């Protein structure tokens, strides 16, 4: 049960949110793209081990989409930011001791 910082409502349990995969994949101008480029937009999303800038929507709360840095190994939560605002830097690497909770 992740504890997710909704920029509008504050910390809320994961079950109030829906996931939206990689953040910042803009809808391209479809007619300028080759099939291959279009397929990439349709299907390819970042899947890194470590910090991932991803989208969430607080569907059971304010209903707003936002972006979040989250670590896919440790589940550490980094900063959240609103769409079309400046993306914060990825948090630093985790220490040797294990996850910060």
């Amino acid at each position, binding site marked *: 049960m992740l504890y997710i910082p909704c920029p509008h409502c504050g910390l809320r349990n994961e079950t109030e949110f829906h996931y939206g995969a990689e953040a910042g994949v803009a809808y391209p101008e479809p007619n300028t793209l080759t099939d291959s480029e279009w397929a990439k937009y349709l299907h390819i999303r970042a899947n890194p081990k470590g910090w991932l800038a991803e989208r969430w929507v607080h569907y059971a709360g304010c209903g707003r*989409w936002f972006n979040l840095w989250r670590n896919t190994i440790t589940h550490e939560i980094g900063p959240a930011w609103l769409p079309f605002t400046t993306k914060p830097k990825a948090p630093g690497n985790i220490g040797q001791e294990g996850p910060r909770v």
Partner: protein
Amino acid sequence: MSEISFSFDDKSYKGHPGEPMAAALLRSGLLTITNSTYHGRPRGVVGLGVEEPNALVQLVSGTMESMLPATVIEVAAGLAARSLTGIGALPDHPEEARYDKTNRYVDTLVVGAGLAGLKAAEEHLRAGREVMLIDDQPGPGGHLRQLGQELPPALREVLAHKNLTYLCRCTATGLYDQNYIVAIERRSDHLGNAAPANRARIRVWHIRADQVVLATGAFQRPLIFANNDRPGILLSHAAATYVAVHGVRGFRTAVVATVDNQGYRDALRLHKAGVTVQGIYDVRPGAGGPSVDAARAAGIPVRFRATVLDTGSNTAGALDNVIIRDLDTNETIQIAADLLAVSGGWTPIVDLATHIGIKPKWSAEHAAFLVSHTTDRLRTAGMLAGDFGGDDDPSVYFGPALDEEQSRHAYIDLQRDATLHELRRAVGAGLHSIEHIKRYTTIGTAHDQGKTSGMLTIGALCQLNALSPGDVGTLSFRPPYVPVPFAALAGRERGPLSDPIRITPLHQWHVEAGAVFEDVGQWKRPWYFPEPGEGMEAAVRRECVAAREGVAVMDASTLGKIDIQGPDAAVFLDRIYTNMFSTLPEGQCRYGVMCKADGIVFDDGVTTRLGKNHFLMTTTTGGAARVLAWLEEWLQTEWPDLKVYCTSVTEHIATIALVGPKSRQLLQELVKDTDLSKAAFPFMHSREATIDDIPVRIARISFSGELAFEINVAWGYARHIWERLWALGAGYGLTAYGTETMHVLRAEKGYIIVGQDTDGTQTPYDLNMSWVVSKKKEFIGKRSFQLPHLKAAGRLQLVGLLPGNVDEVIPEGAYITVHNAGPDEQGKTPHTGFVTSSYYSPMLGRAFALALVAGGLDRMGEDVVVPVGKNLLRATICDAVFIDKENLRRD
């Protein structure tokens, strides 16, 4: 305290309320509790708590939970249990106990109410924080309790602090991300017959804590030697506690085998309680400290560099003698004893920390894996952090060298009957990883999850491969820390509460009318309305005829409804739907299809333009939530420049569909302020009106091809409108119909149901709906229509099917083969599509179907075969519109 009776394996025993059942059994002289799972060897109590590998019982009283250690069951009035050989049973009568769940947010959660935990709680309380303290024992004190000692007054004050919540019998079962802890509190078993009937037996706590302190303590570990599993061989701390605190008097002569000073303390407790301690056999070359001095002062013989090698049993299988080996000379001696108390060092309880990926670190000084992890949100305390208190100076030692024969009865995991011999075989088979060895031997997989056997496995591997435990690493512990009953996790989410039930404002009417319901998502929808003695087929035929020839009414309130407003609403809908909505005049309705970006149809429905900047969208019943989410996603994350606001109004607006040639006449009787005539109120138009002064919105929308009106009304007024229709409808033969009739009527007209006539692979073109795809504008999914496969020939296309036998309703889902096709040599029959919707049409007087057929739109008139079981049904491909191709009936 007075004694009460309880039952074990059908015999009556005496015990003190609240003491462990294991203590009462031992006091009564019952050494052998059960036989082992695979080897059938007699086994008795070993430990003090959840680490117990042997004394597993099933409750026969109360809820009959399938498996619990007798060391944690408290004696209570009415307690009855039976022994298990490591295999539980599931009685099939209903479990009626109550289970509940609760959530808690606290500043600090302390796990473990031993000295370390109490001190941590005190610190956090002093800092003004709200503290929750949970502990799996019946009372606070941890180790002190086991010594039978009172808490110091200062710590008793901690427990009384107003900002402290202390829960006993509450076990933290898992530590999860962001300091989320799941704990189970056992609330009624210890009260036995006296438990209030309505008290939840177990409460599951979901705790979110700003800070967590893990003060989980440690288990004492056994040693590996030959025949180390006999009844009468106990962990020394357990043995001393049973004797000194619980008054177990059956043991007369004890031998203590130790690697640390704990053995001396326990020997002294045994001695003081009147047990003759024949000797302390310590693997170390020497030892000092107050514990050692005290044992020696009491006259207990001590021998260094010696340990237990083997044991012998009496005829009952219990311990009779102990064979001691001198580790320098290898000489052995035999000593008669009915108690062997083993102190193999301490294993701090690292489980919770490892749940979130913290790796324990080996400390040779402590002969233990420790977690000294500290962040600003999580820290450890007490033995887990390496604070062992006393004067222990443990040796890293797991047992003497054993030959092959001895190793066959040197148990590492008592519950799994897994021996040193098997571990050696695993290593011999080429396995190095402790995870492989666990899987090969099954060590650590039983009810106790390796609480004592885990470290022994690591120790045995170290001995074999001359490694340090730090090189081997710990086994991975997974939640839960102790087994949790399924019923506790289900909580109150049973029966009708297992998932919300959504009903329309007309539901009660449907129930009273005898409707048969179907589940559509969480909704209950009337499927059909049988009259007395009528089956589904007859009911549906009657309902269909009423809709086509008279007037019939359906509750369509489950349709998803989204109110869309804003200056850019029309532009927005143009991008969402494949067809144009900006050209839709106010007061009119249009059917629309929406695709995902991959070009695949994902929902459809009729949208009405209520004003220049105001639309009411309808969606499929099942699609309502995901369509709204889809609209919001695009608005918020792609087109923030569009001023559009979407609001779900599904449960604000009820929808009544009045269908049939007589619908206009009936409705006009109710609607005085609006002319419903064809000329005044054309098809696909929408009007505001009133019925009995109740505002309604009426639309000429038809999902049947019949003359039809959809009446939208505020949810709370729906029953009134519905009743009024029925009051007047008697003279018209008004008939209620359900979803099945709706399906027949719409299929007769070739109207699709997304999800039934589509399967997540159809474009609008595949559904013969090129007319709904605008060539003039961009919309979501359009680019994908250009992908090679989406424009390829031979795609499945929506067509009609007429069965050769007019009475034969072809089963939905049946596949269509070409003429004379049979199985090939691999037993596979090529097919050319499948039936999506199939019904009997009273209007056509025959069965008919919709199907998706490869290249079907170019195959009109072709005969095909539909194999159903052994039967080959014949059918002819035809247009998907079966009734009123000219659309004359709808007016």
